[in-house]
């Protein structure tokens, strides 16, 4: 219950093409994350799946049925929004039950579902409160609860953590992961944060400029990015890109992740000067201006004492270099 197929979906606003033919297959129970920079069309794609936006062409199939002409409420979906979007005039219980009441669900069924959802999200003490009387994290839990009680085929999340502060973001991320494990429901999650994508997804869809750049499991994207864009987008700090010619390589661009470089004060391939160092405790990010490779970032695990102006030599791990051709695609080997 809850497969999704997207066939050649295109969307343009006037002359602007926002989505240029998207094909996607989501299996029942999968957690799929759409990730990409702002303006890449990921939210538009989600809104098309939800039925809040009409596709210019193409088909959206939920459980095998084309829903392109079905209104949002009849698609068997539930959505969690970035701004929570709770009804300000209703208390928590009514916020959660409104959709079910609209669909004509029996009162005792509504009561059971709300009881189990509020227990699951520990919302019991707040059921009689209004959204104005809740904190940001509680509001987002209510919004998730409102989605859960509908028992949808498809959960849609539109950047649900963006409005929360850093600590709450980690907690809520964990809650969403547990929710997925418990409900075994199909979930589509939109974010611009690659950390959320890596931590939550079974399958990541990387979008850029209205096109899918790559689809794959988190580690697949990390270890075998299809092109320069995906390589640069996945992983933090960002992958270093070095002009191939400077290193005497035939490839247009050479990519190496900051964590795949070791530094040594004396010996190494690329000699450079420390521009800046970020000490995070668990790791240290060093920005190194190398004679040969230009400005690169190096991620060193643990503490590493270094001052700006010092000289360090960097050596990339053998076999961890990515080579990209002139078209941005990754070259084999």
């Amino acid at each position, binding site marked *: 219950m809850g497969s999704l197929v997207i066939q050649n979906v295109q969307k343009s606003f006037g002359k602007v093409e926002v989505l240029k033919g998207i094909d996607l297959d989501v299996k029942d129970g999968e957690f799929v994350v759409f990730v990409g920079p702002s303006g890449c069309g990921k939210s538009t794609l989600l809104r098309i799946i939800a039925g809040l936006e009409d596709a210019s062409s193409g088909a959206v199939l939920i459980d095998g049925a084309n829903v392109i002409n079905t209104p949002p409420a009849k698609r068997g979906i539930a959505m969690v929004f970035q701004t929570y979007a709770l009804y*300000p005039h209703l208390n928590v219980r009514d916020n959660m039950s409104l959709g079910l009441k609209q669909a004509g669900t029996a009162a005792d069924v509504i009561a059971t579902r709300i009881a189990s959802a509020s227990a699951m999200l520990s919302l019991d003490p707040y059921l009689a409160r209004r959204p104005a009387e809740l904190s940001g994290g509680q509001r987002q839990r209510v919004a998730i609860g409102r989605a859960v009680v509908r028992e949808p085929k498809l959960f849609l999340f539109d950047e649900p953590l963006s409005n929360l502060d850093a600590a709450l973001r980690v907690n809520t991320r964990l809650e969403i992961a547990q929710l997925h494990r418990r409900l075994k429901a199909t979930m589509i999650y939109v974010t611009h944060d690659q950390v959320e994508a890596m931590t939550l997804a079974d399958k990541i869809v990387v979008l850029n400029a209205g096109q899918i750049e790559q689809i794959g499991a988190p580690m697949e994207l990390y270890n075998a990015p299809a092109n320069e864009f995906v390589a640069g987008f996945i992983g933090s700090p960002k992958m270093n890109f070095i002009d191939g010619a400077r290193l005497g390589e035939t490839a247009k661009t050479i990519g190496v992740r900051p964590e795949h470089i070791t530094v040594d004060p004396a010996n190494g391939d690329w000699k450079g000067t420390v521009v800046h160092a970020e000490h995070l405790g668990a790791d240290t990010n060093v920005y190194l201006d190398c004679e040969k490779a230009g400005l690169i970032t190096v991620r060193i695990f643990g503490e590493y004492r270094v001052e700006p102006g010092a000289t360090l030599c960097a050596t990339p791990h053998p076999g961890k270099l990515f080579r990209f051709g002139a078209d941005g695609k990754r070259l084999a080997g």
Partner: protein
Amino acid sequence: MTAARASLGRTAAAHAILIAYTLIALFPVLLIVINSFKSRNAIFREPLMPPTAETFDLVGYTTVWGQGNFIGYFGNSLTVTVASLFFVLLFGAMAAFALSEYRFRGNTMMGLYLALGIMIPIRLGTVAILQLMVASGLVNTLTALILVYTAQGLPLSIFILSEFMKQVSDDLKNAGRIDGLSEYRIFFRLVLPLVRPAMATVAVFTMIPIWNDLWFPLILAPSEQTKTVTLGAQIFIGQFVTNWNAVLAALSLAIVPVLVLYLIFSRQLIRGITSGAVK
């Protein structure tokens, strides 16, 4: 307030300016009200003095009460104002919602067309409106006034409300759609409560010109049954003799209902219930 933000001198100056403006603005109103309680001679002898035990006289109010059908005039004014206000707010909000929420061909042109009325005074069309009302048999009815005032109030209300409606969270409306609410319920239950302060502003701006208008009641509905208060007060102003007591009393009374309506709406102006809906 801390010393870092304001000095005593600046606060005092600001208050002095505001108090001076308040006095200037209220002075004519105050003059009308105090003189309405004085005898005719006292009005002319010492127009600026408040009524004393000697000069106190309710003759103006008794004249207004006794002569003509002032209760009826008040009723007419109130009916016309409240009904026009209702339609202006209802249709204005609906049009504003459509303009701000839906993408359709000619959306911008329609918005401009509807806002045109802000710049062109409706009185320019008086002759045509009169012909229209004569042809449709609406002369000397309150309906004629309500229709004209609704048309008069709509442009500004659409203009202001559509700006506010654009600020209502899209997510909230979309959440309603996913929960299966109809567009009407989204409009009435989710959007309208959130733009209530804007509605109150529009209500105040719409209501006062309607209540005070003399032009259209005089032209479209001058009959005894459909007279409004402003028109009714004119019977005391003659070509040779003017009953100032009655005029001032009638005007003082005319302030009261509009003041009450204003107080109702101004409470809404301050109150906003949007907090908690979105971050």
